[in-house]
C-alpha cells in the first residue's frame, strides 16, 4: 500500500506511523518494524544513554539496527564502529568522539575501551513501559576508510543522511536488501530507506555464502537490492541469482563499468538499474538510471536536488545539504571554505559524459577496501634485489581493481627467466607474510625503469 509519509524527527517516530506488516530480517532473527517504536532492545536502559556520546560496537548488523533506531533522538552522538575496525584505534576513537557509553552484544570485540556506561543490546525486543521521548538532533559519526592510521570520523545529521531519500510516498510492498554492511555509509542508506520508505529490509551476514544469501533474499521476496559492483559481480557468478527478481537494482561505492551494467540488464531484463555516486564524506551526490557508465556532463551545469557539483584540478567536488559537516577531532576541514567537499575521485570527459578515472594519490579501491600503493611499495622495496617499485591498480572484471606491482631490480644478479621467476615468487612471499591478502599484488612485472616526474616522485597514473 502506498501512502503519504508522516513528518517526523527521529527514526522511532517514523516507525510509529507505519504499516504493521513490515519486518527487519537477518539470517536468524526477525523484528516487526512497528514494534521498534515502543519496545526496547537495550533492557530498558535507554534513559541512562540520554544525552550521551555512544559508541555502537555491536557485532551483528541486526542488533546494530535495533540500537540505532532506539538511540536516535535520545543520544547526543552515535559513533558506529564498522566490523573491520582496528582494535588498536579504539582508544583514540573514543577520546576524539568524547565517548562515554558503549552498546555491545554477545559478539562485540573484547578489548573495547573501559567506559563508564556499558549497555547490552539483545536481538529480542521487549515492551517498554515508557521510553524517553526523542528530544535532540543526534550526531551520527561514520568512520572513513582509505586513511592510513586512525580513521577519520565524519559528522552527519539524520536530516542530511535522509535528504537523498524520496520525499513523498511510503510503500510497504517494498522489500529492501543490501549486500553492504549497514555500519558503512552505503549500507546505512539502505537501512534508512527501509525505515523512512515504509519498507521491509533483509540484512546481510558476514561470512554467509552468497548462494545462501541470495536464497534468503528470494524467500523474503526482495524488490529493491543494493551493493557495490564487486558485490554484484559475485552474485552474477552464482547460479542462485535466479532466485531473486528485484524490480530495482542499485550499485554504488565503486565505479560501475558498462560490463557490469550490461550483465545486470541481461540478468534482470525488467528491472530498473541505477548507479549512485556516494561517499562517507560527500553523501549521495547523484543517481544515474540510463543504464550507461559514467554520468551526463550536464549534471555539472545545474543544481539538482540541492546538490552542486564541479570539477577542480581534475577531481569531483560536491556541495550539498547531504555532505558530512566536519570531521570530529581532526585538524583538516572536511569542506573547503566555499563549502565544497573534495571527493578525491578523478573524472575525465568522454563525449557528453564524465567517467571516473580512479582516486587522486593513486589510492586503489579493491572491492570497496581502499589501498595506499605506498604501503605496498615500502614492503616490496625491502627485498634485497629491488631498486624501486610502483604499485598500481589494474582493472579487474571481478573486484573492480587488483593491485599490480612494477619492479625495477638492482643491477647485477642473475637475469635468466627462471631466476626472475624465482625473484617474483620471493617478493610475493614477502608481501603475503607482511600484508593482508587484499594488499598482496596479484601479479609482479619486472621492468627496466619507472618514470620519475619533475617533482622527483614516481609518476602515478589514475586507472
Amino acid at each position, binding site marked *: 500500500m502506498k501512502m503519504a509519509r508522516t513528518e517526523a524527527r527521529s527514526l522511532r517516530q517514523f516507525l510509529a506511523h507505519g504499516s504493521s506488516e513490515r519486518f527487519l530480517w537477518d539470517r536468524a532473527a526477525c523484528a516487526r518494524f512497528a514494534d521498534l517504536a515502543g519496545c526496547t532492545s537495550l533492557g530498558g536502559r535507554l534513559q541512562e544513554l540520554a544525552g550521551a556520546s555512544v559508541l555502537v560496537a555491536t557485532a551483528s548488523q541486526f542488533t546494530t539496527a535495533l540500537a540505532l533506531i532506539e538511540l536516535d533522538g535520545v543520544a547526543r552522538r552515535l559513533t558506529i564502529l564498522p566490523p573491520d575496525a582496528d582494535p588498536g584505534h579504539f582508544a583514540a576513537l573514543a577520546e576524539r568522539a568524547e565517548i562515554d557509553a558503549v552498546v555491545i552484544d554477545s559478539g562485540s570485540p573484547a578489548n573495547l575501551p573501559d567506559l563508564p556506561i556499558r549497555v547490552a543490546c539483545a536481538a529480542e525486543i521487549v515492551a517498554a513501559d515508557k521510553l524517553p521521548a526523542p528530544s535532540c538532533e543526534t550526531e551520527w559519526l561514520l568512520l572513513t576508510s582509505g586513511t592510513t592510521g586512525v580513521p577519520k570520523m565524519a559528522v552527519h545529521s539524520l536530516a542530511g543522511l535522509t535528504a537523498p531519500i524520496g520525499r513523498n510516498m511510503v510503500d510497504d510492498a517494498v522489500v529492501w536488501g543490501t549486500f553492504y554492511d549497514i555500519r558503512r555509509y552505503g549500507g546505512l542508506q539502505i537501512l534508512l530507506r527501509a525505515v523512512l520508505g515504509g519498507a521491509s529490509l533483509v540484512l546481510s551476514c558476514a561470512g554467509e555464502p552468497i548462494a545462501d544469501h541470495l536464497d534468503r533474499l528470494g524467500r523474503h521476496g526482495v524488490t529493491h537490492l543494493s551493493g557495490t559492483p564487486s558485490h554484484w559481480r559475485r552474485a552474477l*557468478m552464482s547460479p542462485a541469482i535466479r532466485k531473486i527478481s528485484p524490480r530495482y537494482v542499485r550499485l554504488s561505492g565503486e565505479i560501475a563499468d558498462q560490463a557490469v551494467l550490461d550483465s545486470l540488464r541481461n540478468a534482470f531484463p525488467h528491472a530498473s538499474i541505477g548507479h549512485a555516486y556516494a561517499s562517507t564524506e560527500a553523501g549521495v551526490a547523484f543517481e544515474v538510471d540510463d543504464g550507461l557508465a559514467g554520468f551526463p556532463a550536464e549534471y555539472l551545469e545545474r543544481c539538482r536536488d540541492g546538490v552542486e557539483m564541479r570539477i577542480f584540478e581534475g577531481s569531483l567536488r560536491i556541495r550539498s545539504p547531504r555532505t558530512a559537516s566536519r570531521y570530529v577531532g581532526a585538524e583538516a576541514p572536511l569542506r573547503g571554505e566555499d563549502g565544497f567537499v573534495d571527493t578525491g575521485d578523478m573524472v575525465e570527459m568522454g563525449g557528453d559524459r564524465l567517467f571516473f578515472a580512479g582516486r587522486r594519490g593513486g589510492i586503489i579501491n*579493491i572491492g570497496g577496501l581502499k589501498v595506499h600503493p605506498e604501503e605496498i611499495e615500502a614492503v616490496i622495496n625491502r627485498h634485497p634485489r629491488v631498486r624501486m617499485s610502483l604499485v598500481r591498480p589494474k582493472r579487474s572484471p571481478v573486484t573492480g581493481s587488483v593491485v599490480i606491482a612494477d619492479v625495477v631490480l638492482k643491477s647485477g644478479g642473475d637475469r635468466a627467466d627462471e631466476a626472475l621467476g624465482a625473484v617474483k615468487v620471493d617478493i610475493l612471499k614477502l608481501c603475503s607474510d607482511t600484508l593482508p591478502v587484499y594488499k598482496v599484488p*596479484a601479479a609482479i612485472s619486472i621492468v627496466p625503469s619507472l618514470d620519475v616526474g619533475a617533482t622527483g616522485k614516481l609518476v602515478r597514473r589514475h586507472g
Partner: protein
Amino acid sequence: MSVKLTIMEQMAQIAREHGKILAPLRDELVLLDSGLDSLGFAVLVARLEDRLGVDPFTAFDDALFPVTFGDFVKVYENGAH
C-alpha cells in the same frame, strides 16, 4: 601446457597463498563453490593474463560472468584462439 592445466595450476597456487581449500575441479563445479573468493578470482584473472596474454573479460565488453569451472575454461580457450 594447455589452457585448462594452466588455470588449474594457478587456482591451486592462489588457494595455497590465500589459505583456502580448493574443491576438485570438475567442469560442472560452480566457481563460487571452488573455495576461492572474489579476491581469489580477481588475482586469478590477473595472473592468467600474465601467463596466457589475454584477459577475455576486459577484452570483450560483452563477456558474461561464467558460473561453472567448465564455462570459465571455455572463455579462456575461446579468448586464446
